[in-house]
């Protein structure tokens, strides 16, 4: 149920606007955009593809945020360890970020 991979929208089919050509490192396939009709993607957008349908738009911002957090892994922990020594446990910024918890 879970094989879904990212692809970039190259072109929307002029005759059937619910279909788009999506590129995955040089492999192209027509993908149905019907499940994203509430906020239709445009050429250049990245989408998650599963069984020939686009399931979700991929947020570059969220991906970048995640990369940043992962890069800081270890550094944040080191900071926390250091601060722990000062008895400031309750003042440590929340990890992971609040917006991941809603």
């Amino acid at each position, binding site marked *: *149920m*879970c*094989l879904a*991979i990212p692809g970039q929208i190259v072109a929307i089919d002029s005759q059937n606007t619910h279909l788009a050509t999506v590129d*995955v*490192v*040089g*492999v*192209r*396939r*027509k993908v149905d955009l019907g499940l994203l009709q509430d906020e239709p993607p445009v050429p250049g957008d990245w989408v998650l*593809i*599963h*069984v*020939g349908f686009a399931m979700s738009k991929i947020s570059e911002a969220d991906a970048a945020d995640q990369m940043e957090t992962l890069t800081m892994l270890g550094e944040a922990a080191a900071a926390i360890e250091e601060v722990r020594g000062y008895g400031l446990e309750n003042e440590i910024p929340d990890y992971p970020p609040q917006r991941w918890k809603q």
Partner: protein
Amino acid sequence: MATAVTKIKFREPQIEMSHGAGGKASRRLVEGLFAPLLFGSSPGPLGDAAHVQINGTKIAMTTDSFVVKPLRFPGGSIGELAINGTVNDLAVSGARAEAIVVTFVLEAGLPTEILEAEVRAMADAAEKAGVKIAGGDTKVVEHGKADGMYVTTTGIGRLLSGVEISPQSVRPGDKVLLSGPIGDHGITILLARGDLDLEADLRSDTRSVFPLVQALVRECGAGVRWMRDPTRGGVATSLNELARDCGLGIVLCEEKIPVRDSVRGACELLGLDPMHIANEGQFLAVISSQHAESALRALRATPGGEEAILIGEVHEQPDSAVLVTTPYGGSRLVDMLVGDPLPRIC
């Protein structure tokens, strides 16, 4: 004189497509039915080509049949596969192909121009490979059989001097060499069939690997322990066969295995493993550790060998298995292909 009854160990009630896919099922059929009945009591490990002694001279001989749909695809056609496939089987057994005979099984209704195009392709491929087409046979079957045409080629060749390849000569510490990117041919065919609606700029890699094998043998002689062309079943199947035949472990380094982006993309989309996909223009070699670096240099200096790379080495453990290490210190076993590689959605 009592004759022993040869028992066959192949128990399946009917032949399935998987028996021709080059993986475990094929091996069961060959080892369980063909070998006991055809190859006598001690067949030995089954290689790409047979070496037969005639009056003191060792001749290499091999045969292969080509059943491909569609007949023409980006980068080649059934005709070229038929010539290059047999030349390559001889090459990886350490022999130069000298002559090939061809059998055609043609479907009634096949347009002549298609047949002519294939025969031209075969003539061209043979000339390029430096092999003579010495004869052949033709049969025609009813419309609806033979998918247009089936081609079988049988080739003989002369062993290169200095060659002593066998799985038994493989030792721990030996290196595994791959001539170039994998998966091109199999994915090209899959896309050319049109069922999956995928498009990519991919071509079959069909070519004769003999010049590369020759360069390797010249450089290393007996340092070349084993070779194979990973056709159906891919690199995983060929290396698993070696591992079983020599009882040692083959440990590969995942990030060293070259895969073109579009092959990778198609495999990710369809849930396929490039290591199980057929190749028609690449070969694997196991080289002794002292020759490995010079072998690589020799290949890279040969036209067509620029992308050759060392992808792993032979170990004692895990015995009779192929292990792939991931870039993160993890590892996984890679098995032979079970049936045909099937796209998956899960």
